[in-house]
């Protein structure tokens, strides 16, 4: 085998060489976001460990630097599912549909972690794993189920344009739950167990750096995983297309 052929084949193993357009950009974003994450993570860990403890609260208060950033990224994942669906309906470009699938997948993972870390925080702060009277907990669980159903819809069907159209509409409608989930604390008028939404200067000065580093770290992690998930979805589509092309004419009727 010639050296040139060997080089060409080793290049072909790189996902970026198999993909085009925004999916190629996503494949190329995996490494730089991973490197940035490797730099940011120790800084974040140091800032969380050295942050002062809030008055009258235990060390469990440090979940503040984890739980809200995860929630914002779960919102982002579901928003991107709706946006991908909307762009797919508008342009009929399949990579937007694959972006919607990928962001729903990462969003559901993040939302699962929001529910788990929230339950742990609830147990520490309220001595209750799940405060049933809290509307945000219920709505977050509903949001999680809505997009879990989206993933199942995409996983257990054959694919195709009709499924993509239905899923796009479903994903867009699900986004309506996001502002409701965020503002439900204000709507509940003091009946919610959750504290009020974070506002400007509502975090003590010593807690701001770890909080903003938490926002940056978990957002970067989200983008890294989203790029990886989008690449996987694109590679699966490429493999399915090539298998369909390789199938002899008429085999589907056999």
């Amino acid at each position, binding site marked *: 085998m010639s050296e040139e052929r060997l080089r060409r084949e080793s290049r072909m193993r790189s*996902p970026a060489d198999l993909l085009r357009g925004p999916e190629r950009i996503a494949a190329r974003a995996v490494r730089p976001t991973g490197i940035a994450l490797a730099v940011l993570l120790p800084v974040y860990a140091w800032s969380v460990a050295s942050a002062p403890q809030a008055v009258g609260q235990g060390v469990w208060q440090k*979940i503040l630097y984890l739980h809200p950033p995860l929630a914002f990224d779960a919102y982002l994942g579901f928003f991107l599912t709706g946006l991908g669906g909307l762009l797919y309906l508008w342009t009929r470009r399949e990579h937007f549909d694959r972006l919607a699938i990928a962001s729903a997948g990462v969003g559901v*993972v993040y939302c699962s972690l929001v529910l788990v870390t929230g339950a742990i925080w609830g*147990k520490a702060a309220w001595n209750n794993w799940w405060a049933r009277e809290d509307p945000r907990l219920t709505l977050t669980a509903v949001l999680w189920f809505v997009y879990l159903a989206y993933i199942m819809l995409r996983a257990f069907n054959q694919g195709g344009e009709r499924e993509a159209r239905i899923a796009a509409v479903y994903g867009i409608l699900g986004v309506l739950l996001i502002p409701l989930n965020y503002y439900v604390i204000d709507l509940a008028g003091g009946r919610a167990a959750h504290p009020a939404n974070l506002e400007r200067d509502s975090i003590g000065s010593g807690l701001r750096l770890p909080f903003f580093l938490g926002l940056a770290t978990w957002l970067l992690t989200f983008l890294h*995983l989203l790029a*990886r998930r989008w*690449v996987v979805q694109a*590679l699966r589509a490429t*493999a399915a297309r090539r298998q369909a092309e390789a199938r002899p004419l008429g085999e589907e009727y056999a």
Partner: protein
Amino acid sequence: VTYAVVAYTVTAVTLVAYGIYLAREAAGLARDAAARERGEETNPG
């Protein structure tokens, strides 16, 4: 301390495991695609 440690550990382990799964999946699919380019048999799974 335990609650915070558990919350951070669960998050880190979950996201690292998910990242490893996605990396392995992408590598496998890219390898299959390269083998298909060479005209070799590939594992349909």
